[in-house]
């Protein structure tokens, strides 16, 4: 979710306070991360949860081509690591995933599809969970429909499916730098 969309959605200019203090569990440790190494460590902890949510939102049997959730989460990590990414939203993504896990005694990833649906719909009932799920959807759509240079939309498969094509010239390099993994 872009920040201005956040204002529209929540009707508040106090986006930052909402992101930091909105957690029902009173987390917000991730807002204190200083170094990029800290972010990498923190991201690895919540990565399985994020991937499970993405897989649930964008399942294999959809009209859209299936995405490798590991590739999508790598995109998330890369785009969120870049200095242009809003640091509050970066922390919010981690925090929201932690909260989801905590709501399910750290077993969210092992729930069945039906149980996940119930869990995510319940999370959506909270304004914090709703904002987090919107954020996850936005980031995932960015992954799927960005230029192929970002790694997910290989051979323009998502663009082909919807019959839409990025304009020319296409980017010759990623603004987040080259992938060195």
């Amino acid at each position, binding site marked *: 979710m872009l920040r201005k969309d956040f204002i529209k959605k929540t009707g508040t*200019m*106090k986006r930052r*306070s909402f992101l930091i203090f909105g957690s029902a569990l009173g987390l917000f440790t991730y807002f204190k991360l200083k170094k990029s190494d800290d972010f990498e460590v923190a991201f690895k902890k919540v990565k399985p949860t994020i991937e499970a949510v993405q897989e649930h939102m964008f399942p294999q049997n959809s009209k859209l081509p299936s995405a490798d959730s590991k590739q999508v989460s790598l995109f998330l990590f890369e785009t969120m690591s870049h200095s242009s990414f809003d640091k509050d939203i970066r922390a919010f993504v981690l925090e929201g995933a932690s909260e989801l896990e905590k709501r399910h005694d750290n077993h969210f990833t092992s729930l069945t599809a039906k149980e996940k649906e119930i869990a995510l719909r319940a999370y959506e009932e909270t304004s914090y969970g709703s904002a987090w799920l919107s954020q996850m959807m936005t980031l995932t759509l960015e992954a799927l429909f960005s230029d192929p240079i970002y790694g997910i939309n290989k051979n323009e498969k998502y663009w082909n499916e919807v019959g839409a*094509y990025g304009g020319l010239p296409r980017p010759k390099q990623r603004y987040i730098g080259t992938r060195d993994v």
Partner: protein
Amino acid sequence: MYDVVIVGSGASGGAVAYTLCKAGFKVALLEKGGLMKREEFSKDELAYCRRDFVTPNLFDEYHTIEEKVEGEWVATPSYESGWSFWNGNIVGGSSNFMSGMLHRMHPDDFRLKSKYGEIKGANIVDWPIGYEEMEPYYALAEELVGISGHFETHPYAPWRSTPDFSQAPTKENAVVKLLDKSCKTLGITPLVTSRAVLSASKAGRDACYYSNFCGSYGCSSGAKGSSREALIVPALATGNLTLLSNTHVKKLHADSTEAVSYAVVVDTITGEEKHIKAKLFVLAAQAHETARLLLNSANEYHPDGLANGSGQLGKNLLFSGGGSGQGELYKEGLMEISFEELMTTGLFVNRSVLDWYFIDDPKEGRFKGGSVEFMFEHQNIISRASKDNKDEGKLVWGTVLGERIVKRFREQKSIRFEIFNDWLPTDDCFVALDPVHQDKYGMPVGKLRLNGHPQDIKVGEYIAKHCEKILQQMGAQNIYASISSAPAQNLVAGGCRFGHDPKTSVLNKECRAHDVKNLYVADASFMPTGGSVPYTWTIYANALRVADAIVRHLKST
């Protein structure tokens, strides 16, 4: 020492640099952002439209935005809200990213008070110049910038000194057949949009190649009439221009009551601070940043800020009133054209309506109205994929979401209108210095108090109702309109209004500071009222007019 230092390289800075360099003066053009050349632009939606790629990170540089909450003015830093008031901080400024739908203001826009009288709560004044003084510069800008179009007689179309545009209109999607017919059925006159995009190659700039991704993106053929392509590149070719990118101006220093002696600047890469001297200084930033810079330049000679003898500096900030609306055209029931024609990508809708520029309605009365532009929904793919993922407030995901996304792209095309009407100047819309917050260079940030006049909403809603009828006539579905008092941050003007009286205005009619002899303001902040069209053509024209005044000034001293 330079003859002239210009602060800001957008539409106005480029126009002044062009004129002065052609006249043989040595000019330094200061730009806080970096230089991106034509070949460096791409249609990378993620970078340009979804990240702060060409604007500052809000945690480094920001504004505070003051809005009324339960009767009290509350200021919120923009890093808190995410509501950025930066617009394209690279060489050429936001003109790199404009959609380029440009119009001249109407002669009556220059005399709004005389023509339409006072409006309670609005600080309306006539301009100190008339349209006849601006017209030659509208014509000059049309040629230099390369504005394409086709002049059609209309009661509210401003007169021109030349019969027609030298650049033919850009190519049009077949949907104009349907739009034109629908308008005519309703007794509305559609006009061809004048657009700062070349339809034919000109002076080292290639014609438009209809990329389908124009607004919000830099142009890769040079067709878009950005300040960089149309003015800075030829100014550099004179050998008289020194372009200093990554150079942020903290303040101007005046060591007397009468003149500025140097600009205090910071290299944004190295952090090194230095002074740049010139005989004359021209401010050409975004309107709210120009007022902030002058307020931040206060010293013992100018305790209330530079050029602020009137106390009017930063007051009467303007945005653009109005809003937008949209409807969906589907294959089923599509009239006049084939679905394949509708879905053809890249071509412009190219239609404007001026029928409601002035309104005399038996029920609503006589009042100033506004202009309308028609266009397709922006073709950005990520944003379109994100638009239909809610059902009764809940997210849609799974297989249903996939079906919805595919359907949205393959089975319809959304047509949209944007309304531009006056943002009336009021006491509650201004820029001041924030008493607490500072940017990363240690300078107070601009505090923007934003409040629209109720008349702005009334006008916007009046016009929107008519536009919705056009979409209905076209057979569009799911039509909606949104008229808001929240300002569009990319359409900002005012704050240094020009006028004859030094007690009530910041600048004289040539946009020179009343108080400071070697200081001019060339950007949109001179405007005391904003008219009912996007500002850019008027910014280009007025900056060319101011530049001629500066040439006369320099030659006489």
